[in-house]
């Protein structure tokens, strides 16, 4: 490949010059970015910085999944949305702003919640998925669908002054499944008990914390597209904004008895709509405004 001339236009080279001059990106890396498609689940606090950064970097196609509308109390941290867009669907609001940055972007809004019914159809055509959601049921569903469809997942979360990031089921979909890293369920086999989860009105989150984690998710998506790996494969990044400290800890590898990514599970479960999937007992992501915006107290 490296002997082949890149197919960037003069215009592309000029526009992305400050980025493709980096030896780790280069013209071939830029070409990969332009040809890639990234799905962002959740167009809120983490989705906003991830989306702006990826639209700017020249990712060719960006999809946004969110059934929620922009409300005023989102704006303290969801800084890609704006007062004129209050009441508008968040996926559409984010498309609008990303297209202002990059008119050649293909931006696809899915103005609905991810559910067992629509998840496979929505996720199937994308290369990389970013979990920027705000509740545990969606996180498990996104993971399970990514495993079933062979998509690498970059998962970010934030609360108060803290954020977490990890890459699951990497590397890229052109590799065989056997070489994939642990999935979210390998690391967190069981969802937290409902009583330990509360909504964000009780806990809060600082804007720059979601800004840092969202940018890290975008960076790892770029790295994954360009190099096929992430720094957070089998590692969990723990960001403590209060102490200004980022720890990267080694986490477990693939679980042979994982309820979704193990060989046994893969032989049984083919679709999250299947009855076979019912045994995982995943509660539907909540539909009402409060729970949709809910975040774990613990």
């Amino acid at each position, binding site marked *: 490949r490296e002997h082949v001339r890149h197919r960037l236009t003069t215009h592309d080279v000029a526009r992305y010059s400050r980025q493709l001059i980096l030896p780790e990106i280069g013209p071939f890396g830029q070409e990969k970015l332009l040809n890639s498609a990234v799905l962002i689940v959740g167009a809120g606090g983490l989705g906003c910085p991830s989306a702006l950064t990826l639209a700017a970097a020249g990712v060719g196609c960006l999809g946004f999944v969110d059934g929620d509308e922009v409300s005023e109390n989102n704006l303290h941290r969801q800084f890609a949305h704006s007062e004129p867009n209050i009441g508008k669907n968040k996926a559409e609001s984010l498309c609008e702003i990303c297209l202002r940055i990059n008119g050649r972007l293909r931006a696809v809004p899915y103005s609905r919640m991810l559910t067992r019914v629509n998840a496979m159809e929505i996720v199937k055509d994308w290369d990389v998925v970013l979990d920027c959601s705000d509740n545990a049921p969606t996180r498990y569903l996104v993971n399970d669908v990514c495993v079933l469809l062979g998509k690498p997942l970059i998962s970010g979360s934030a609360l108060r002054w803290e954020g977490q990031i990890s890459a699951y089921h990497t590397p890229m979909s052109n590799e065989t499944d056997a070489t994939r890293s642990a999935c979210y369920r390998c690391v967190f086999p069981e969802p937290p008990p409902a009583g330990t989860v509360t909504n964000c009105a009780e806990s809060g989150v600082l804007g720059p914390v979601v800004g840092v984690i969202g940018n890290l998710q975008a960076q790892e998506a770029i790295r994954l597209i360009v190099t096929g790996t992430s720094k957070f494969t089998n590692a969990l990044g*723990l960001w403590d904004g209060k102490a200004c400290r980022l720890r990267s800890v080694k986490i*477990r590898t693939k679980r042979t008895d994982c309820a979704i990514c193990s060989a046994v599970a893969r032989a049984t479960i083919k679709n999250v709509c299947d009855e076979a999937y019912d045994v995982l007992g995943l509660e539907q992501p909540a539909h009402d405004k409060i729970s949709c915006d809910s975040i774990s107290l613990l």
Partner: protein
Amino acid sequence: MKVKIEFSGGAELLFDNKTEHEVEIEKGKTLKDLIQYLARNMLREKPELFIQGDTVRPGILVLVNDTDWELLDTLEYQIQENDTIAFISTLHGG
């Protein structure tokens, strides 16, 4: 012997809102013993927010010197002098 205990991700709210603690424990104790000790002596909130049976509740990650306890012997891991044991609640917000 001295062991450093760290809480984060919200787990610190169950322990006096302090992220770092130092505890003195006997040689030969395992993580299972430590979890019981913490639950009995230092936990300030409802136990089910921290323990479930003889282990931590789902959604709490346990690290020994920055390594997932699943890569060690989990509950059976024998605590060493000056180990740092971290209990980290998973975050779901965004």
